[in-house]
Structure formats: structure tokens, C-alpha cells
């Protein structure tokens, strides 16, 4: 009997990060969680509007929170939490939620502007999938593993928005361990890098790609020097800067070795024996040669 939770994909999860979505839905199901997509949703805005007088940029995220309350009302989900995968969506939705819960004036204005929607009742809690997995317990994860990722050395990379600002960190923002625990539970070996929570360059990649390349390069180099086979992460923009752009970075630093970049849900899918739902064919650099060489793809089992 699956526990149904409202799931907010975000635009990128439907296109560039489709592998994240496929593997998340499959691995969550294996853990007894059914991710029910919001039947009607819009872009959350990707970044929180930090100006304290802002009301307009709250419309998009709060509209999605209203949808969750509607889902609850229609009995489509079993509880009031909203699960996100993309770190940017987690941060934006969570901060918008906090912003309307703390500021009644803003909430009133939003209710006025969004007159065509029912008012937001403030009953939603925004969480990230990693938090749910931790809540289930690492023992539960270990139980579900059919193919331990033995011999795989993985460097967890958190990015910024799951841990900062302080108020919404899903783990200790100075020294997070949630991803490390997950990697270990899946049977792989953890490679901790000093810059595991240092910015990859984020949106600067659009018009100042050399700045993003510089930051991403440092992270990749640390992973390489730490002996990692691959990096795991939770954000499609980090994946783009560290993965898609890796070839361009290697152009500037030819000694950088090829380092596949996988979403943590893809590792879970792989370890749970759900290879077909891991979406590995979409990753760039292609992780399959590496995984095959470690005997982690194809026939062999426990």
C-alpha cells in the first residue's frame, strides 16, 4: 500500500532532467512512496525574490501550494506535504511558503490578486525527496537494495539551495551527511570533497559561462583527486554545469578525467535493481561504460 504524496516536477524535470524524474518515481515507488504529480502546475519562478517588498513573485509558487491543498481536498494524496526534486524549486517553494505564513499583509494581497483561486490556507509543507528517504530510515533503504553498488566511489555534491539560507537547510549546513548516508546505504563508497556544498556557478552559466566553468572545475578536480568514480547530486542546474559542460571544461583543463554525474535517484534505482528506470541513457557524460566496468549493469546480482 503506497503512501501518496503531492509531487512538484518543475519545468526542467520534464525535459533536460527527465532522467531525474523517471528514476525518482521508480525508486520512490520501491520504497512505498507514490509521487502524484500536481494535475495543474506552473513554473515556480526558480529563485526566491529576496526584496522584502515583493508580492508579485510570490504568485507563481503560492499558486502551486494552492493546487496541493486542492489535491488534498480531492483525496488524490494522503497528506499535506509537497515533494520536490529540483533544489531550486525546493528553495523557492519553501521560501515563498514561509514568506506568506510569516507576513499576513502579503498573504492578504496575494489573496486579492489571485482572486480566481481559493485562498491559500497555509496547510502545505514543502520537503525535498532526500528528507523523505531519511525519514523512512537508512535501514529501510538497505533492505530494498538488490544490487549493492560495491566498488563504486561516489562524491556527493549538495549544491547551495538545499542547505542555505540557514532557515530551510535539510541537514546541518556546515557539515551535511544526508547524501553520504544514502550512498553508503546503497553499498557504495563515499568520497568527501571539501567543496561538496560550494556553488557550481548556477545561473551565471547563461551569460558568463567561464565563471561557472571556473567554479565547476574546482569541484570536479576535487572529486577526481579524491579518487571518485562519479559525482551524485540533486539539482538539474548543477548537473548541467558539472555534467553537460564537462567537456568544455576539459577543453581548458585536459588532465581532468571523465567523471559521470548522476542524480541520487538514479543511484537508488540502480541499487534497487530497477536499471531500466534509471534513465542512464540521458546522462552526459555517459555513465554506462564506467558502471559496466564495475559490473553494476546487466546480469550480475548480489
Amino acid at each position, binding site marked *: 500500500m503506497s503512501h501518496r504524496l503531492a509531487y512538484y*516536477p518543475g*519545468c526542467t524535470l*520534464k*525535459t533536460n532532467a527527465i532522467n531525474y524524474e523517471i528514476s525518482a518515481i521508480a525508486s520512490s515507488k520501491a520504497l512505498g512512496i507514490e509521487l502524484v504529480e500536481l494535475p*495543474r*502546475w*506552473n*513554473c515556480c*519562478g526558480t529563485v526566491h525574490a529576496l526584496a522584502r517588498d515583493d508580492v*508579485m*513573485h510570490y*504568485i*507563481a509558487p503560492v*499558486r502551486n501550494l494552492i493546487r496541493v491543498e486542492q489535491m488534498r481536498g480531492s483525496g488524490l494524496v494522503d497528506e499535506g506535504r509537497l515533494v520536490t526534486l529540483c533544489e531550486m524549486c525546493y528553495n523557492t517553494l519553501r521560501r515563498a511558503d514561509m514568506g506568506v505564513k510569516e507576513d499576513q499583509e502579503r498573504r492578504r494581497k496575494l489573496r486579492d*490578486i*489571485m482572486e*480566481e483561486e481559493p485562498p491559500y490556507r497555509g496547510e502545505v509543507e514543502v520537503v525535498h525527496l532526500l528528507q523523505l528517504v531519511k525519514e523512512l530510515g537508512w535501514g529501510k533503504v538497505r533492505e530494498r537494495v538488490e544490487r549493492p553498488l560495491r566498488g563504486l566511489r561516489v562524491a556527493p555534491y549538495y549544491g547551495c539551495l538545499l542547505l542555505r539560507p540557514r532557515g530551510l537547510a535539510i541537514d546541518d549546513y556546515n557539515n551535511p551527511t544526508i547524501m553520504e548516508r544514502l550512498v553508503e546505504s546503497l553499498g557504495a563508497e563515499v568520497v568527501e570533497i571539501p567543496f561538496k556544498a560550494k556553488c557550481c556557478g548556477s545561473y551565471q552559466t547563461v551569460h558568463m559561462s567561464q565563471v561557472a566553468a571556473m567554479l565547476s572545475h574546482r569541484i570536479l578536480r576535487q572529486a577526481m583527486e579524491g579518487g571518485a568514480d562519479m559525482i551524485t547530486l540533486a539539482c538539474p542546474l548543477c548537473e548541467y554545469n558539472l555534467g553537460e559542460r564537462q567537456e568544455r571544461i576539459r577543453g581548458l583543463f585536459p588532465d581532468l578525467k571523465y567523471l559521470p554525474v548522476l542524480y541520487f535517484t538514479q543511484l537508488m534505482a540502480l541499487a534497487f535493481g530497477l536499471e531500466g528506470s534509471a534513465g542512464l541513457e540521458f546522462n552526459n557524460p555517459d555513465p554506462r561504460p564506467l558502471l559496466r566496468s564495475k559490473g553494476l549493469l546487466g546480469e550480475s546480482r548480489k
Partner: protein
Amino acid sequence: MSGGEMVTVYIMGKRYRVPANLTIMKAMEYAGYQLRRGAGCRGGFCGACSTIYRMRGSFRLQVALACQKMVEDGMIITQLPFIPSEKKRYNLEKLKPGASVFLEYYPEIARCLSCNTCTKACPQDLMVMDYVQAALRGDIKTAAELSFDCISCGLCAVRCPAEIVPYHIGQLARRLYSRYIVGPSEQVQRRAMEVEMGRFDEEIQRLKSLDTDTLRELYSRRG
């Protein structure tokens, strides 16, 4: 003259008394305006007569198609005979259906705030915000279906705070949908083949040989 009820309307700020049973367009012409732009099919289909108005006593800004909307007492009206926009040039044959095509040709779509102002400005009651959002996430089918009845009147574009032109997005979505997702129409292909096989040659030749009067008679007796 209809001899019926008269109402007061304000056309571009000037007050007029017009019969109540007229559309905005007819009321403007009754008042003496000659519409060279801002009038087209007069049937609610071409999108030329985009009109915005307020009712005296209300702050609400409302929208209408002048050829469809009846006048009401206290209407303060103006037409928007042209909405500035630039359709990007693309070769449909070279495009791939997905979110990236919208970011490539209309990157301003990324500025959408999901404020729903476009939806509220649509005289056809379309779910404009929803089709723009669908395009942004690459859901061409939904974008095409929701924008199907769009007549490109431009009222959404004029109101959008992010300066997006939604009807261009819808148009591209529909083109991609029919070219790549739905595929060529069976009926059209069959008919084209029939034409090529000469099935209609005889009839066309016969029609070509007729004189104007006979043609006129045939036309009025058609169907």
C-alpha cells in the same frame, strides 16, 4: 431608427448617446467613426477589433471584441487597432518539438510570472497562462489544444507584465503539434492522390467551359 432604448458611452473620452441594441463596433459607427483599422470579419474570428473598456464606477479594466460585445450604459471605450509584436522567423521543417525551441526563438517566455493576467485579458476565455506554461515545459500537445481558439487579437500581449506575446507561443505550438505530433491528415493525403489520379479533371473542364450566367445559377443552387 430602432426607436428603442438609448445608452451613454464614452468613445476615447467623448460622450455619445447610442442605441442599446448595438455592438461596440456598430455603436462607434453610429457615432460617426469610420473604422479603417480595428475592424475585420465582424464575426468574432479575425481578432482585428480588440477593445478595452471600463465601466463607470468600477476600477476593473475589461476586454472585448468590438464586433461581438453589446454596449452598456457607462462604458468607457477605446480600441487597440494594432498590438506591436514581432513574429520570429523559423523554418518549421528544421525545428524539434520541445521546450528548447521556445527558449531559442522566444526566450522571453522564461520571464513568465504565472500571474494569470493574460488569461483574464482573453476575450475568448482561453487558459492563456496554462498554454504558455505548457510550452515552457515542452508539453506541445497541451499548448496546442488550449490555444486552439486563439484569434491573435493581442490583448494578452498588451497586458503581460513580462512582455511576452502569448499568441506567438500558441501559434508555434500548434504548428509544431500538427507537423510533428499529429502528422499529416489522412483525408488531405487521400484527396491529393485522387486529384493527381485525375478523378476531378472532367468536372473541372466542364466548369471551365460554362458561361458566366450558367455559373452564377449553378452557384446559387449549390448544396
